[in-house]
């Protein structure tokens, strides 16, 4: 039986400082105003793609403290670029720090999202294709698939990093926007390209809404219009050898985003494990900044 220590933040101080420093650098690095229209999800994708020419830089962190292992902080530095109105590409650099263990780089991911239908419908599909080259020590937990459980999170880094995973991941993203609400559902299929193993499946669902549907004319910091709130639920669905919820981990949690005026957007979510295979709680925190029309920065001004 694997259990976790609830509410125990045991990350070394230098890791937290490093994370805070990177966040501050992201905060001050760019001056143009940064506002994205994406719902406040960590795992679930909606049909919102990056606007063409915009570059969003995010630092996504996941912190947990499994009872039988050391506390860790998994991070993913994300570069998201809108290539076309119907095509967004993203590149991730993943790393993690584990208490009483080490801080390591764990790999990279490259993902692409496409909108096959160019008009808006009640349900909007988006196709997602990702290649990831990460080792087993990766703790970013950007999705949960197959029989991935908390037991995988307590393996020492020097052992886990020996196993390299080269995976292809496919998602069907369905999303609805109505009356200010967003409802999104993702169906995930993942295959390790190294081995002739089974396909692994997972899901993620989210619902969210901005706290205010209209904008006040004057600039304000704590206005409701700067916040969005919601909830998401996600987990594994087994493999082709054993489809279902058995021996999978499942998480559910509220999520809130705060778009700082003329600054970055901050997301926070405590996500609670729904069964014994899940970590008791995952604390997720991200800082993202959107650089609008990034190529304009390199053009000569007349």
């Amino acid at each position, binding site marked *: 039986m694997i259990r976790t220590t609830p509410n125990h933040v045991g990350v070394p101080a230098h890791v937290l400082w490093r994370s805070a420093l990177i966040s501050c650098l992201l905060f001050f690095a760019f001056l*143009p*105003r940064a*506002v994205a*229209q*994406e*719902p406040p999800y960590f795992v679930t994708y*909606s*049909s*919102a*793609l990056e*606007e*063409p*020419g915009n570059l969003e830089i995010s630092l996504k962190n996941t912190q947990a403290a499994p009872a039988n292992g050391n506390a860790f902080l998994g991070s993913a530095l994300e570069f998201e670029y*809108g290539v*076309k*109105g*119907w095509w967004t590409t993203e590149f991730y650099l993943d790393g993690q720090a584990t208490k009483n263990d080490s801080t390591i780089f764990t790999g990279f991911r490259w993902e692409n999202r496409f*909108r096959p239908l*160019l*008009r*808006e419908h009640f349900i*909007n599909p988006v196709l997602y294709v990702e290649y990831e080259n990460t080792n087993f020590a990766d703790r970013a937990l950007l999705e949960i698939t197959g029989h991935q459980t908390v037991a995988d999170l307590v393996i020492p880094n020097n052992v886990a990093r020996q196993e390299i995973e080269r995976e292809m991941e496919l998602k069907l993203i369905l999303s609805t*926007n109505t*009356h*200010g609400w*967003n409802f999104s559902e993702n169906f995930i299929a993942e295959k390790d390209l190294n081995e002739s193993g089974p396909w692994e499946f997972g899901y993620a669902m989210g619902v969210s809404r*901005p706290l205010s*549907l*209209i*904008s*006040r*004319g*004057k*600039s304000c910091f704590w206005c409701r219009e700067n916040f969005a709130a919601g909830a998401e639920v996600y987990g594994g669905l087994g493999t082709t050898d054993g489809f279902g919820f058995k021996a999978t981990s499942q998480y559910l949690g509220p999520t809130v985003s705060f778009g700082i005026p003329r600054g970055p957007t901050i997301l926070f979510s405590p996500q609670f494990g729904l069964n014994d295979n899940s970590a008791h709680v995952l604390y997720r925190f991200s800082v993202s900044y959107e650089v*609008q*029309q990034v190529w*304009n920065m390199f053009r000569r001004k007349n």
Partner: protein
Amino acid sequence: MSRLRVSEKFLIRWRGAEQRCRMAFRVTLSTTALVFCMALADGSWLQKVPADYHTRVNPYAGQTAAIAGGAKLFGDHCAKCHGADALGRGKKPSLRSERVQQQATEGDIFWLLYNGNLRRGMPTWSAMPGPSRWQIIAYVKSLGPASGAATAVNYSEEKSQ
């Protein structure tokens, strides 16, 4: 010999005809593409707007507070492409053209914001709440055609205060 000459002449004529055909095909193709692009650039999206959107009325039209909110949203989401003065930047069109200010109804623009024009680089703003989209439209319409720059200045002054 004479047979050879005849066949050579035929070959030369045939090649000439082939070249002319190719040229005609290229010209036709280029012209069609040009006309198609001009049609798109000329706002063919307006013809795609369903009748129920075309006749929609902006609930915030003429409301000063809502227009000020729209100015803020415009600055956040639209100004980087269309310019702070909404006159367009580079290939991004002006929102103070006759087409946007006079030909298109507010319902037409609402439909465009909802659906976008993904092939031509205009993203969909469906994730933005409907009232916020109406606020942006109220602001854009308040700017008027390109000569009415004074309105834009007034709202930006209000914003800075």
